[in-house]
C-alpha cells in the first residue's frame, strides 16, 4: 500500500514550487525528504495536511487518513501540563481511562513519565519536543508528518530524540513523512530517502536504506552519506 501524489502544481506569486510533481510514500515506513531550504518541503507537508491548498494535482490514498504533525517548534499549550497537552488532542477520540493509558504509554516511551504533571515552561527544549512526539503518536493517526523537528536542537539532543523516536516507531509502525535538510537525521531515521532539488521540485534521487545498524560511524552509512552528498551538491 502506498500514498500517491500525481501531477501536483503549486506556485506562490512568481515562484513555481511544484510543477507536475509526482511522489509516492510507502505505508508503515519512514520516508525522509532531504532538500535545500526553501525548496518547498514544508509546503508539501502543509498541502498534505490541508493547511494549504494545492493549485492542482491528484492525491490517492490520503482521503481517509488521520494526520499527526510534529512541527519545528514543540507547539505545546503553556497553560496545560504535559499530560493535558496530549489529552487536548485525543479528547474526542477515546474514553478517559483508555486515554490515560495511551498517554502513559507514549510518555514512558519518550522517557517523560515522571514529567506528566509539569508545565512546558519547566521543561527543556528537547523534552518539549519529546512531548510533541508523544502527542503525535498518542493521537490515533495513520500518517505522521514531521517538519524538521530537530532543527533547533544540539547534536546530543538530536541523537537522543532520534533514539526516542525509533524506539516508539518500533512499537508502533506508522507511516511517517519526515522533512529535513540534515543528511545525518535522514540516515539515522529513514527507510527511504528522497533528495529534492531546488524549486520547481524534482526528485534527484531515491535511496532505500536496509542497513540495521544506524550509527553514524558504520561504514555502510558513511558510504551512503557520501553518495547523498554527491547528489545534493
Amino acid at each position, binding site marked *: 500500500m502506498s500514498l500517491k501524489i500525481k501531477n501536483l502544481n503549486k506556485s506562490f506569486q512568481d515562484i513555481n514550487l511544484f510543477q507536475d510533481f509526482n511522489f509516492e510514500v510507502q505505508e508503515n515506513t519512514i520516508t525522509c525528504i532531504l532538500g535545500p531550504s526553501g525548496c518547498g518541503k514544508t509546503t508539501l507537508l502543509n498541502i498534505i495536511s490541508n*493547511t494549504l491548498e494545492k493549485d492542482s494535482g491528484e492525491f490517492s490514498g490520503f482521503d481517509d487518513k488521520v494526520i499527526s504533525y510534529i512541527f519545528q517548534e514543540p*507547539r505545546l*499549550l503553556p*497553560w*496545560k501540563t504535559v499530560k493535558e497537552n496530549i489529552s*487536548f488532542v485525543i479528547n*474526542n477520540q477515546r474514553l478517559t481511562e483508555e486515554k490515560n493509558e495511551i498517554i502513559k504509554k507514549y510518555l514512558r516511551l519518550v522517557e517523560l513519565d515522571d514529567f506528566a504533571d509539569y508545565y512546558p515552561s519547566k521543561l527543556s527544549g528537547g523534552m518539549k519536543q519529546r512531548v510533541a512526539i508523544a502527542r503525535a503518536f498518542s493521537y490515533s493517526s495513520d500518517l505522521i508528518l514531521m517538519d524538521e523537528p530537530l532543527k533547533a536542537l544540539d547534536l546530543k539532543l538530536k541523537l537522543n530524540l532520534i533514539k526516542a523516536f525509533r524506539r516508539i516507531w518500533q512499537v508502533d509502525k506508522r507511516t511517517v513523512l519526515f522533512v529535513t535538510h540534515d543528511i545525518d537525521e535522514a540516515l539515522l531515521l529513514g527507510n527511504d530517502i528522497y533528495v529534492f532539488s531546488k524549486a520547481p521540485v524534482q526528485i534527484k534521487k531515491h535511496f532505500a536504506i536496509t542497513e540495521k545498524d544506524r550509527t553514524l560511524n558504520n561504514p555502510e552509512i558513511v558510504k551512503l552519506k557520501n553518495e547523498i552528498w554527491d547528489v545534493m551538491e
Partner: protein
Amino acid sequence: MKMNLTKTRIISLISTILLIVIWKIASVFYNSELILPSPESTLITTIKLISSKGFLLIISATILRGLAGFAISFILGVGLGIFAGINSSFNAFLKPILVTIRSTPVISLILLALIWFNVETVAVFIAFLTMFPFICTNVIDGIKDINPELIEMSTIYKVDKTKIIKEVYLPAITPFIFSGVSSAMGFGWRAVIIGEVLSQPQFGIGTLMQTAQTFLLVNEVIAWTIIAIIISYLFELIIRKTQKRIVVWK
C-alpha cells in the same frame, strides 16, 4: 531572592514612614486642625468613622457601585474585546469609541451623567465608562498576542472550535484580562468616589466626603480618603491572589 524581597519591603516601609513624617511636620507648621490635621488625630477620626453606626452601609454602597460598574465593563469588555480581536472590521469600528471614552475628562462624563441618570446610578455609569476601555483594550491585545501556530496545531489535530476557544483563546488572554482588570479597578474606585461627591446619593463615601468638606472637617475628608485607599488596595490584593491561583503555568 528572599533577601531582595525583604529589602524592597523595608524600602517601601521607609517611604511610607517618610510620607507620614512630612505630613506631621507640615501639620506642626500650619498648627491648625482646620487646614491640616495631624496624622494621629486623623487616625483617631478614621477609627471613629470605621466604628460608627452606618459605616458598613456607606462603604457597601460605594463598593457595590464600583462592582456593578466593574461587572458591566467586564462582561462587555471581554465580549467585545474577543470579537474585536478576531474581527478586524469590528476592531476598526470600536477603536474610535474607545479612544473617545478614554480621552473624555471624567468630570464631563459626570456632568452629563448628572443630567441623564438618577443620583444612585451616576457613579455606576462613571465607573463603567472608566473601566470598560482598559478591559476591552487589554483583551484585544491578548487576542492579537495569541500564537497562530498553536491555533494551527489545534486545527491540524482536528480539535473542535468551541474547545479551541475555551482551552486556547481564553487561557491565552487570561493574563491580559487580569492586567486590564487591575488598571481598571485602580481608576474605577477614584471615578466612583468623584461620581458620588457630585451626585450625592443617599449613602456613599463620596457623599460623606462632600459633607465633611462643606463643614471644613479636613480630618474627616482625609480619613475617608484613607478608607478609600484601603478599599482600593484590598481589591488589588484580591485580584493578584486570584491571578496567582488561575495563572499557574508561568
